[in-house]
């Protein structure tokens, strides 16, 4: 295994281990996601809008907001005790650090999404079993891109004033293409439409992932290096 990948995995493992020991961020992100789902259902007028019509949007807005909570934490933990400085003086390439942080964030956001899905089927009364592979696939495809952008923005946001506010302001415009695509594909999946109707969106999501993961990996050193 190439050295860079091994180092990236080590950094990701460190983050995941730290999170599993405290679990505070994970639990709060999960509770937050559940609350958003509940509010969505409660704020809907049942006589005007059926739960299934609202379901894909509710699911993805929940994912987006929960990811924001999750991403805010990614570099906050690195800030305490100057942990990031320690990581930066270690003989690790910036690309490896970025990929490591990205993988840890993906694990974190992925867990939140996986736990939210059953709650979603429960609250919105949609049956996901038949389309589960499709939903998981599009969730993965959409999540990778915006988590990459979110990782780099959260590295910046922790060094600014109003860090918790900065991340959503910067990241939300970048969530538009993945979110729009994911909602469209999920709607078609739930309606049992053929794959050909989703292909355009899936291509867009894949292209977004490739472009932004590459670009964020390349510019990460500009964020952390003095």
């Amino acid at each position, binding site marked *: 295994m190439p050295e860079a990948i091994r180092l990236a995995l080590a950094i990701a493992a460190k983050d995941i281990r730290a999170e599993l020991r405290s679990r505070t961020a994970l639990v709060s992100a999960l509770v937050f996601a559940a609350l958003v789902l509940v509010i969505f259902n409660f704020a809907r007028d049942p006589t005007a809008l059926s739960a299934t019509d609202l379901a894909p949007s509710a699911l993805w807005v929940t994912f987006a907001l929960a990811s924001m909570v999750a991403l805010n934490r990614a570099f906050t933990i690195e800030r305490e005790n100057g942990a990031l400085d320690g990581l930066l003086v270690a003989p690790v390439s910036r690309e490896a650090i970025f990929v490591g942080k990205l993988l840890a964030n993906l694990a974190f956001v992925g867990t939140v999404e996986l736990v939210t899905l059953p709650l979603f089927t429960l609250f919105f009364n949609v049956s996901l079993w038949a389309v589960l592979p499709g939903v998981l696939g599009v969730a993965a495809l959409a999540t990778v891109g915006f988590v990459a*952008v979110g990782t*780099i*923005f959260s590295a*910046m946001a922790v*060094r*600014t*004033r*109003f860090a918790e506010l*900065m991340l959503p*302001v*910067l990241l*939300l*415009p*970048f969530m*538009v*293409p993945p979110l*729009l*695509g994911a909602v*469209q594909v999920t709607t078609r999946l739930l309606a049992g439409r053929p794959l050909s109707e989703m292909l*355009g*969106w899936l291509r*867009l999501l894949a*292209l*977004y992932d490739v*472009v*932004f993961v590459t*670009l*964020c990996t390349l*510019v990460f050193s*500009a*964020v952390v290096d*003095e």
Partner: protein
Amino acid sequence: MSAPVISLEVARRITHRGLALSAAALLGLALVYVLALGYTPVEARQGLAQKIFYLHVPAAWSALLAFSLVGFASALYLWLHDPRLDRFAAASAEVGVAFSAVMLTTGPIWAKPIWGTWWTWDARLTLTLFLFFLFVGYLVLRAAVQDPSERARFSAVVGILGMLLVPFIHLSVYLFRTLHPQPIVLKPSAPSLPPEMLRTLLISFAVFTLLYVGFVTARYGLALAEEARDAA
């Protein structure tokens, strides 16, 4: 980067040059108003509402020019680390936000009588709205970072990512709309403008470009003056 000492005198000269250019452009703007109201014919279908076109389209042009230059200056900054590029990007973003505010307010004023609605989620409208948000975010970020070199690097990263986001937003909004056809909207597609209209529009383009140059120069000079003050 060891920043060379900036003289307040140079900053003042650049600011004054920018203000002079802006003043000239504002006179030009007055001319555009006169031409739009007195010289151009009244459009047959849209009536007087069409007059806003002479402000709206050039403002949109200046806003897009401003934002694309932010993207290019950001990319160059990460490569060359020249503080002038960062100062320019900051000035251009601020001016771009001002021009897009003009574009986003004149648009709905025109759209209400012509389309019958203030806003529609058309591809171009949505794209420019998100561009506006993106660059407001860019400015918020700049305001929230203290260290100048850190501020320059962070905003350059946002500038580059933002430039790449534009085609994606465009593509996704386009896909979104074509799959859900909207009622046909009347658009000012103008293949053959009467010469009076075309001339006025071209003058207005020139005026808005000059306005952009003037504003950015003045803002650049002010940024220099601020740096000189902080260094002193």
